[in-house]
């Protein structure tokens, strides 16, 4: 349809006008949420401390400061090493989940997701308990120290594992059994089948997983902050420049340097995915693995080992949060959960997080779903829809820290009429929704593409306004996707650190940020406790979602039954 040659000027119906107005408003909102803050950040890099334009001077000084440049190399090193470890690990795990007969498969799948529900500093804290200066297993390290690259990499592996596993599980799950049967009939050895059928089939998944992990590590801030020691990376540099030295211009420059690899990885991923043709045609026969004792035993043991490691790290954080005085008094206590003793906000920061997460889930879901619908269903208006599409994809390529920094520059500008948002809950919600916009937008778009494209044509022929069909038909049909988006936003809003660390005010401090502050002040146990509360909350919400999905919505959606 995009190819249609314009010639005849077609009149616009009331629906068309409404939709177009909606697209314009959406473009405006996204511009404020994503475009302008990034622009402000870009501009800031060319100014000196007093706001005078100084061209590339900041960049010159950045690249001629060896310490700063070293951080960039460090970031690349950590990201590469983590990627090389996580991707094979996740691949084997995903292979076990999809291609072998695993006892209690759902449990292994669930355990692999746990890290998603935790703020990134949780694995850092657990490692401190295990291998820190007063760690249980400190002796195992000999002269070495967990503070530095080793600790960062281990924690990053934990943190990135579920993301890679999810992507690879999807890639491996979409297999056509007929290919394997054909290979069998042709008498190919198992090794050959693996290298000629399985691996090529998962190729795009592997590339995608590698790029996602690389970007996650490059841009994560929590882990390096907690366990990095003197090993500086780009993300901690931004934080130090901005919070420590109040050098915003230099912070902006480091932010731009941080943006480059993330944006590059994003572009590569887009290009690669475009090459991917649908492997699973409508006629494909899904592959159902058959039991094979030796293979299944091996993969079960592997999954047990990985799951045990994940649970150990989570368990260590939980245990640490319950201990009186590590490592001298191992008696149990709930004192560490009395947050008022460690941070003036006490439990308020937790409730702030819940409020923020709810706000982001509600506002974000409405915006993302309605936005995706407007952009999918508006007739014509290609230019503006292109702008929206671009702005919706941009956040994926932008690290949270960088977006947060852009928010400071944009919203704190005295001449910005939106200045009133600065240091409110509103800006935290806005920032979080913007940071996670792309995934929600994609989820909504995919769901919308799956429903009959003629609903709008039918309602036009019946003279029913398009928005009525949106409310009565489209949105109810997409309810599962809508809930997925809401839960995704809630969980990420609970755990995110990097995108909001610059934006909170004393009375809007969030739990994840409070955990960073408490840890910085040296009370690891309380920081662990706060992380545990966050994990429990987001995991509980996810569990409620699964239960509701299974029991409640089955009843609400009788129409899905045949």
């Amino acid at each position, binding site marked *: 349809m995009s190819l*249609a040659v314009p010639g005849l000027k*077609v009149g616009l119906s*009331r*629906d068309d006008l409404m939709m177009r107005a909606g697209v314009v408003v959406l473009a405006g909102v996204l511009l404020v949420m994503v475009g302008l803050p990034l622009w402000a950040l870009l501009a800031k890099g060319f100014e000196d401390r007093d706001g005078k334009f100084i061209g590339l001077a900041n960049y010159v000084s950045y690249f001629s400061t060896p310490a700063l440049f070293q951080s960039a190399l460090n970031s690349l090193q950590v990201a590469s090493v983590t990627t090389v470890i996580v991707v094979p690990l996740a691949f084997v795990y995903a292979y076990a989940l999809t291609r072998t007969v695993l006892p209690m498969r759902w449990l292994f799948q669930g355990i692999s997701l746990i890290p998603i529900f935790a703020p990134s500093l949780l694995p850092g804290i657990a490692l401190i308990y295990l291998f820190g200066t007063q760690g249980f297993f400190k002796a195992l390290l000999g002269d070495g120290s967990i503070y530095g690259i080793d600790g960062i990499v281990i924690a990053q592996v934990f943190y990135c594992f579920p993301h890679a596993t999810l992507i690879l599980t999807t890639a491996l799950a979409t297999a056509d059994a007929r290919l394997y049967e054909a290979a069998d009939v042709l008498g190919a050895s198992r090794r050959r089948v693996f290298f000629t059928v399985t691996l090529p089939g998962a190729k795009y998944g592997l590339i995608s997983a590698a790029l996602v992990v690389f970007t996650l590590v490059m841009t994560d801030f929590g882990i390096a902050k907690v366990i990095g020691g003197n090993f500086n990376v780009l993300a901690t540099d931004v934080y130090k420049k901005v919070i420590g030295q109040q050098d915003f211009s230099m912070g902006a420059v480091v932010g731009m340097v941080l943006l480059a690899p993330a944006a590059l990885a994003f572009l590569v991923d887009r290009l690669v995915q475009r090459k991917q043709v649908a492997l699973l045609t409508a006629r494909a026969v899904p592959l159902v693995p058959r039991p094979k004792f030796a293979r299944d035993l091996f993969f079960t043991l592997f999954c047990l080992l990985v799951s045990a490691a994940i649970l150990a790290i989570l368990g260590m954080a939980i245990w640490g949060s319950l201990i009186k005085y590590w490592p001298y008094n191992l008696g149990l206590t709930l004192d560490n959960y009395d947050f008022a003793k460690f941070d003036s906000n006490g439990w308020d920061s937790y409730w702030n997080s819940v409020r923020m997460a709810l706000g982001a889930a509600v506002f974000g879901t409405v915006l993302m779903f309605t936005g995706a619908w407007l952009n999918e269903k508006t007739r014509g208006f290609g230019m503006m829809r292109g702008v929206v599409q671009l702005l919706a994809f941009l956040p994926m390529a932008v690290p949270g820290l960088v977006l947060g920094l852009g928010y400071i520059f944009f919203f704190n500008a005295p001449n910005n009429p939106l200045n009133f948002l600065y240091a409110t809950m509103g800006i935290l919600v806005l920032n979080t929704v913007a940071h996670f916009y792309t995934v929600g937008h994609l989820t909504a778009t995919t769901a919308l593409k799956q429903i009959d494209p003629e609903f709008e044509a039918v309602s036009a*022929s019946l003279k029913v306004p398009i928005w009525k069909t949106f409310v009565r*038909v489209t949105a109810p049909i997409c309810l599962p996707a809508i809930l997925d988006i809401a839960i995704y936003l809630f969980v990420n809003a609970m755990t995110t650190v990097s995108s909001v660390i610059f934006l909170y005010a004393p009375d809007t401090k969030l739990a994840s940020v409070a955990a960073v502050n408490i840890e910085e002040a040296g009370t690891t146990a309380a920081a662990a406790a706060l992380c545990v509360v966050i994990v429990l909350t987001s995991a509980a919400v996810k569990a409620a979602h699964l239960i509701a999905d299974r029991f409640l919505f089955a009843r609400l959606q009788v*129409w*899905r039954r045949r």
Partner: protein
Amino acid sequence: MTNYLEVRNLSKRFGDFSALGDVSLDVVEGEFVCFLGPSGCGKTTLLRAIAGLDPQTSGTIRQKGRDVSALPPAQRDFGIVFQSYALFPNLTVAANVGYGLVNRRQNRGAIAKRVTELLALVGLPDAGPKYPAQLSGGQQQRVALARALATSPGLLLLDEPLSALDARVRLRLRHEIKALQRTLGVTTIMVTHDQEEALTMADRIVVMNHGAIEQVGMPQEIYRRPATAFVADFVGSMNFLAGTLMAPDKVRVAGVDFACPVQDGLAPGQKVSLCIRPEDVRVRDLPADISNRVPVEVAELDFVGAFCRAILRARASADVAVTADFSSNLIRDLGVDIGTKLDIALPPDRLRVFA
């Protein structure tokens, strides 16, 4: 008779590709018109342009005297049924059928009455409280039809409404839709690539190819007097014998002259195809002086059910083969088998000649 719909010089381009080229067409009020043609010939494109869903690149459309060329679909008057039916899965059948009525500020009672009436009309009086997923394909199709008819549109558009159904249901629905259309008298345009469907249902058939109209006519006309070689080939089966026009009423094929209807538009000496339908080939009781007699030998005999399809080779020239339909009776009576030699005749009034 007044023209209900007038399409003039309609073109539609996608990039460099011309999906419709300068199409003009009139549809009379109350008529059932079928767009027939091979896949990709532009049937759907034309139908969607008439609905305003994908507007044309140029050209005009008048509906009931009103120029609707530039109007959005919501301001035109039509009901539409898609191949996918596009029923709203989360609404009951009754809510689906009443979907367009709710918006017209009628009271609940009136709407309910109309819905009941429509469901009875399409033969599903009890389906109201069910959901679309609980109905068979044929039943869903009827619900879609009831929904499209609910607002009493002046024009009903059907895009391959039967193609997703199995053969038996399709056959039954053909008759039901046709009967319904006749009762309501609603002007109807149906897209199909199934010639049998078009031949049995349509008052007039519009045969399309490569974005252009090849022929418009009543089913018998299209079948008996195809205007172009494409129509002759696409609708029904047809023998094509390569030959040369010797005189306005004479075509020479492989050295033998055949009498045919007088050709005005063609010049003698021109290469032509001499065409005849398999069922028009005569075998029985040939009078001694019959024209266009050809001695043949049976080369192949395919059992097709009600009849056999025979491939006959001219004894004089093995290059010339004619397909003919023989009834089972005829095969028994004449003892036809592979290798049988017999004489056939190609009746001149049944011959068509195309350049």
